[in-house]
């Protein structure tokens, strides 16, 4: 296992030595436009070994990948196809073609300028806060559960829940608009008082179907609830 390193893993290794992955990510997050172009390109070659194509409950294509480390940790990532540059261009062009004649007719160049600025801000907000690129759940044995959401601009929201407060990971059934959907959620225990403190839904943006959720559920339960096999040996010979 250790002998064969894929490109991505080697990259991780390098970053550990420098200890600067997050810092680089944060810088990326402050330059959303550059970051978004980065992911645009990355979106094309999203296919990794071990990734499978799935569909969300709305029928959108999803790429599902799994990274497993011998009963110690498991990470499931659901990625949606990247934002295409052409759709962004079309959107801006459409707004311009509408506002240009209007502003020339009304003789108000400020209208065109403000429309441009609004469109640019809108795209920034969309890429930075709304459009989700990857969502992942990482379960580390004895340590905790980490949920992360990466947006199209490269910004990542990560939430780590310690194992002490993780009660369980379950599949829930919920009503969304006029449909019944399944979703995976992490039950967070209240340590001071007994009972639940929160129910954190996972894959909120991707909303995968039940077959995918089942896979994730089984993998997570394996890490959460199985004890590794016991072997004892004494140091004093």
């Amino acid at each position, binding site marked *: 296992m250790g002998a064969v390193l894929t490109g991505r*893993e080697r990259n991780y290794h390098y970053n550990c030595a420098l200890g600067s992955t997050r810092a680089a990510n944060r810088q990326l997050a402050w330059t959303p436009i550059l970051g978004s172009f980065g992911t645009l390109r990355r979106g094309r070659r999203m296919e990794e070994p071990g990734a499978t194509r799935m569909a969300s409950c709305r029928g959108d294509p999803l790429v599902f990948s799994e990274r497993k480390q011998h009963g110690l940790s498991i990470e499931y990532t659901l990625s949606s196809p990247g934002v295409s540059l052409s759709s962004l261009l079309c959107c801006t062009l459409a707004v311009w073609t509408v506002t240009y004649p209007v502003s020339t007719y009304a003789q108000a160049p400020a209208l065109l300028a403000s429309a441009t600025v609004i469109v640019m801000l809108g795209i920034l907000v969309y890429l930075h806060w709304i459009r989700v690129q990857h969502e992942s759940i990482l379960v580390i044995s004895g340590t905790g559960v980490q949920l992360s959401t990466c947006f199209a601009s490269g910004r990542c929201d990560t939430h780590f829940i310690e194992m*002490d407060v993780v009660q369980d990971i379950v599949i829930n059934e919920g009503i969304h608009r006029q449909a019944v959907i399944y979703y995976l959620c992490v039950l967070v225990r209240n340590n001071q008082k007994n009972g639940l403190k929160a129910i954190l839904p996972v894959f909120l943006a991707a909303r995968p179907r039940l077959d995918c959720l089942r896979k994730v559920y089984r993998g997570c339960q394996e890490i959460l609830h199985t004890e590794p096999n016991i072997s004892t040996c004494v*140091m004093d010979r």
Partner: protein
Amino acid sequence: MAAKVYFPSCCLPAQSAVLLGCKLGRRDSFLVLATMSFPFTPNRVKSFLASVAPRDTPPWCDFRPEVLGICNVSADWRVLDDESSLTAHSLCKIFNGEAWLEVELHAGSTSPSSCNIYRRDTNGHYNLRSPRTVVFAHYNQREAVTVRWLAEDSSDFTSMEEQTADVTKEPSEMALFFTALSCNEQIFLPPPCEDDLEEKQSTGSSVCLRHWQDAGPEGSIVVELGKAACRPIRRVGAWFLALVAPLFICRLWTIAPLPWIGDCLSTWLQLHHQHDRLRVVFSPPVVKVPPRLTPPRCADMICSMLLDSLLGLLLISHIYPHGHLEAATDALPVFTQAVAGHLQELLQWLMGAPAGLKLNSTLACTLGRFFLYHIHLWLSYVSMLVPYVGPVLWYGGLLATLGVSLLLSMLIDITSLLTVHVYCFYVYAARLYRLQVCGLSSLWRLFRGKKWNVLRHRVDSCQYDVDQLFLGTLLFTILLFLLPTTALFYLVFTLLRLMVIGGQVVLSRTIWLINGLPVFSLVQRLLCGYNLAGGVEFEVLTQTSKSILNVSMQIQPLSVWAVLRRFWLPSRVMVHRSPNPTQLVATILSGELVQPWYRGGSGWG
């Protein structure tokens, strides 16, 4: 459950070394603080560890550093020879810890090839821990030591102490991790100055440690001067406050109407608030817990007060030299005349046929005259007040040196004094309207043969005689036909009142913002975000062995919203919850008085 080893990524040794660190709580988690290279004498190490042991450890955990284990570095892929494992064996006997770690590293690699944990049993033998799986977390020591742990679910240090009074519940592991690091800060401090060196030599300077080295406080003359000036300033401030204090704790203020009046005057409340803050700032510091673990409330308070005063001074320098104040005072009578004129026009309009509505002209006329007389009263009241407004504004404006918030609260008071008539109109109209609505509702019950049972708090059926029914129905009809006229007056005056309240709410919101904004924490977050930790995040690294998981642990800065929520300073005066719109509409329709929603409570709105 897998055991956990937190290892500083800067301490990966090039040669075999001994691991110094501590155990986190009762869990199988080990925090490595530093590595110590060979050769050393065990006695020196022991005395060194005793010298750096934290003095004020929290009672719920023992964070004294000890020798945790050994890290073997092999030059190639060879298995360790017998000799070195023999050394390890003897070492664990010498230091005799509760547990013993054995980490094996290949030279040049960052992740260990094996990590064994032995536990001491009752006979003193070391047994290998049963699940051999280990999570090996690399952390950045510089960030972890300089950071303050402020996660959402971790409460302050002191309250954590209280809550763990029952020993069964331990704080979360991350809280333990950061507390242990800050307790053992002494290891990371720079070596002592030349004078102390001789003394140190005898204890254990020969111990060669490898860890992140704190550069120590920066030697700056400004900082030194500030430190020296701190005490005299505090003393002068305390003396000054002692002079002012009788004004606030005077027994005169407890006499019957005065507390109520004081609570109504926002200027008084704001003055009280400023006084409380100054008292907190100038009171001698209570050193109970390490300063890194207490929120910088004092710094936040000082900064927000400075900002407040600065804004006030700016305002004064803009207003006084340009004569804006005199212009405003001169414009006041003209303004009141204009307002009274508009109000009279409005009333005349209501007394006729407003918007084509056909009202009960007699009632509308009566009501209109009543309110016109009130406007007349108000005009004479304002003409009595006007000569005093100018000096009050002029001298009161000087209070802005204490803070712009004080000026704004004075503005609120002046507005509510000058708009007494609007309040009166509103209350009269609301009372009248409420009376009619109540009468209508009870007569509607009579109309249906029911009545309200006061004793049982419910509606009962009831037998009325013909006279009662006749009179009730007659009254019901009269009230119903008079309702539109009253409702129209009520509506107009409610709108006026809501406008005044809206203006006051804007002012009080501003005061709340100035009072509560934690400037220092916010600037700290924006300039050096990693100082405030809001959480951690893990990244899985390559796996080099079946039983070891390498993860890197990074610290997440607290989000700006979380900083605001956590450090928002309580405010005495103006806290207001914007009313629920449906509730507001219900209150207005039922004719109850709309209370100004800018008083009471504290904290983050």
